[in-house]
Structure formats: C-alpha cells, structure tokens
C-alpha cells in the first residue's frame, strides 16, 4: 500500500478520456468590490462595476453547470465575495452541485452570525488573507484601518465552526521581513495551512512592481526561513509557497497549463483560462450568459488558443520541460514581449530573460515609489507612514 499521493497535474487528464478535460477547479470572482485596496490585487486594473455583475440565478446556474462538467472545487473569491448579500444562495447552489467550497476572503466584512450560516450551508474551507502581522503596516498596505484584529476574530470563528482554515499571506518587499512571524501567526490562529504567496506581477502588482519587488537576498532569506519552518512545524501546519518568478531559473507551470486544470469566471460572467487572461488583448472570451460552461471550456476560442503544446514556438516545443511548465505564463509572455506564444521571460531560455531579471534587480534596490492603491481609477494616495 502506498501513501495517498496528491493528484499530479497530468494525472487528471490521464484517467478517463471521456472526461479527460474536465477542470479540477473553478475560480469565481463574484464581484470586484472590496473594502481593501491592496496594491498587488490580482483583479484587472479595469474593475467590473457592480451593475454589470451576474445575478444570483446566473451564479447558481454556473455552480450547477460546474458540478455537471466534473469540476471538483470552487473558489468563491472577488474582490471581497462577502459583499454580495446573496452569497448564501450562491454557496448553497455550489454545495448542492457537489462542489468542494472554498471562500477566499479578507474577512473584514464578515459577522460571526453570517460565517456560522455559511458553515451550516456547507462551506468547507475559509482562506483568509493577511497583509502583515504588524497591524500598522497591514493598515497601510490595505488602506484599511483595523483589519488584522477583525481577521483574528474570523479565524477563530472559522475554527469554532469546524471549517478548514488557510492563511494567505501575499509577500513583497514591504512585509517580507515578517515571513517567520506570519507562519507563527497562522499556527496561533489554528490554521492547517498557510500560503506564503510571493506577489505575482500582473495587473495592480505590475503597476506597483517598484514598490513591491523584494531583493534577491531578501527572497533567498525568506525561502530559507520557509524551508526551516517546514521542518520545524511538520505535522502542525502545511506551508505552501508561491515563488516570485523573477528570481526563478524556470517559469512556473502557470495555472498547471493553459486550459488544463482551472477556469475563472469574472463578475460579469466572462470565462477565462486564468484571471489575468484578459490582459492578452487579442483574445475574445465567451460569457456564461451566452454559452454553456462545458461548451466554453471544451470549444471556446480563448481556451483552445494555447491549450496543449501545438501553439508553442521552437524553443518551447523542443524543450524537455514543455509538459512540466508549459512554457510558463502566456500573460507574462504577452505583456513583456508583445507575443503570447513567446517563451515566458521568466525562463532562462528566453532571449529576454537577462534583461527581465535585471528589472527586478534594479527596482528592488531603488527607493520604492508610493503605492497606487487598488480602486476604481487607481488614484494615488498615501495612508499613514511611508
């Protein structure tokens, strides 16, 4: 008998050809509204307005279709998903569809009563973000006062209700010194898991890259601290780390391969192969209001465009790692080279790699500019301190 191993990325597609291409996960951005204004937000810089959001019935239909398609896990995200007053009804549809439900929240808008209601409906997992363990710095990063104390409350209610708790900590140059304390904080909260999520430089984070990019040295220090903590806290907390690809030799297997494992539904109902895909400006995206989810997943133009390995350029197509990292990230390739079929500059085999890595080197050693906070219009403000 073997240990129970996590499903490998390729494994999902390998089992049964009739259902080979069902995605494992669905990320639903229920809204782009959020009381926090974190400058590394993964939402697009052009935020969807509230009037254009899908209705309750439309989201419920998405959940039913996801279950039928064979999707296993749904991530209810945003923006801040709990600002939707109908979250209970959407969650209920997801639970009924047999989906494993994960709420990705900043926590600050949740009451105890409401969280208990979510648990009663059948919510499985709460993923709670923190901006820092130093309250003042957390307030400054999120442009929101008193968030950390509220998050602590939500963490305790989550445990009280018997749901799984993950602490999600986006890491950047203005909080990277606190990585060990964040892990200790997550343990104190009773979290079973923490994500040390080095900021990925798209959308708002790309806009704020100069304020967020850590130096290579501080990244290496943090990586060692994580390695040490994994040993020290084995059996106590699971520590997952998302690596900043500016300091990597090979690119990340973005989304586990384009249109292979995950789909993303925007507040307006557009279905994307990843949450940043709209940055590839020549792609067109189908909407759940016009076309069934399964049809979009299997036949949608944007999904088929970079699915598999056929689209790859010579460098990627002949690379022994093509089924490991899939040529990296299409959005990053497009943003930085102008052609989404190019090798991701995060890859050392990209002709742009050196130039690109230099950007991180230079920016991380320069004085960080003020944050461009995540809000409609993205106006520049400073909240307290520097």
């Amino acid at each position, binding site marked *: *008998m*073997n*240990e*129970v*191993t*996590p*499903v490998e990325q390729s*494994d*999902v597609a390998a*089992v*049964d050809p*009739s*259902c080979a291409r*069902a995605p*494992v996960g669905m990320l639903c951005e229920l809204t782009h509204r959020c009381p926090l204004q974190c400058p590394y937000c993964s939402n697009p810089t052009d935020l969807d307005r509230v009037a254009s959001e899908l209705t309750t019935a439309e989201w419920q239909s998405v959940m039913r279709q996801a279950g039928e398609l*064979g999707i*296993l*896990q749904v991530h209810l995200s945003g923006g801040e998903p709990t600002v939707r007053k109908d979250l209970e009804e959407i969650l209920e549809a997801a639970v009924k569809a*047999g989906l*494993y439900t*994960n709420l990705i929240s900043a926590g600050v808008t949740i009451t105890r009563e409401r969280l208990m209601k979510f648990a009663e409906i059948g919510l*499985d*997992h709460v*993923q709670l973000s923190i901006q820092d363990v130093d309250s003042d710095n957390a307030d400054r990063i999120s442009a929101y006062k008193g968030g950390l*104390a509220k998050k*602590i*409350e939500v*963490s*305790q209610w989550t*445990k009280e209700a*018997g*749901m*799984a708790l*993950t602490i999600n900590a986006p890491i950047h140059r203005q909080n990277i010194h606190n990585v060990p304390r964040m892990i200790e904080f997550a*343990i*104190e*909260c*009773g979290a*079973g*898991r923490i994500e040390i999520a080095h900021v990925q430089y798209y959308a708002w984070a790309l806009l704020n890259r100069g304020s967020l990019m850590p130096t290579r040295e501080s990244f290496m220090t943090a990586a060692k601290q994580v390695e040490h903590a994994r040993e020290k806290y*084995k*059996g*106590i*907390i*699971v520590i*997952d780390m998302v690596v900043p690809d500016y300091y990597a030799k090979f690119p990340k297997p973005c989304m586990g391969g384009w249109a292979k494992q995950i789909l993303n539904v925007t507040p307006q109902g557009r279905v994307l192969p990843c949450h940043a895909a709209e940055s590839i400006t020549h792609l067109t995206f189908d909407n759940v209001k016009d076309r069934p989810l399964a049809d979009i997943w299997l036949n949608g133009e944007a999904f088929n465009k970079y699915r598999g390995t056929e689209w790859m350029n010579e460098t990627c197509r002949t690379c022994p790692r093509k089924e490991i990292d899939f040529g990296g990230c299409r959005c990053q390739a497009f943003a930085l080279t102008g052609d989404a079929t190019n090798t991701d500059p995060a890859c050392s085999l990209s002709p742009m790699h050196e130039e690109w890595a230099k950007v991180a080197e230079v920016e991380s050693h320069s004085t960080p500019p003020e944050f461009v906070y995540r809000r409609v219009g993205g106006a520049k403000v400073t909240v307290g301190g520097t």
Partner: protein
Amino acid sequence: MTIGQYAKRERTMITGDCRPSIPRFVKMRHDAGRGRWILLAPERVFNPDEIAVAVLQKCDGERSVADIAAILADDYKAPADLILKDIIDMLQDLSDKGVLNAGEPTKS
C-alpha cells in the same frame, strides 16, 4: 480577541490505539467522471488507491487503527503486523497534511 485556543502545538503521532476520523472539511467521494475515488481537501485533491479507500471508509472515530488493521488483514489474507505498519504510515502522512483527525487516546 486572543488567539491560541485552536493552535496545534505538537505533531500528532499515529499509533494502533488512535481512533481516526475524517474531518468535516475533507470529503471522500467517488468521482464517476474520472472513474476513481478522490479525497477533497483545502487546495488539494488526493487520489487514494483501493486499500487506502478501504481504510478511510473505516475511519469512523470508533474503530482503532489496530481494529482496522485486523479487518483488512482478514479481508486481504495478509499478516496483521505488516498491514498495521502500512496503515500507520499512510494515516501519519494524512495527519501531517492536516486531512485526518488522529483521535489520539486520552492520556492519563
């Protein structure tokens, strides 16, 4: 609000006396579309083999690990001590990953 009430301070070690159960937030079900059993957990999908499924289906918080080993030894006509060791290894791994309630015997 103070924290620490739910903090796990020590690694739980699985023994034959533990009475394990699957937590509320872990779901084991048969995935018809993919033709196999799956264990759904936070940001993870596990793919238990036939024997792992047989073990996990018996993790009800009542049976001890030793009880489960005895049942399986009978079902699979295998030596109980060998089965016990394998089961402990498997459950330890799941416990370390936070997807199993170990059900430790109360210390006196």
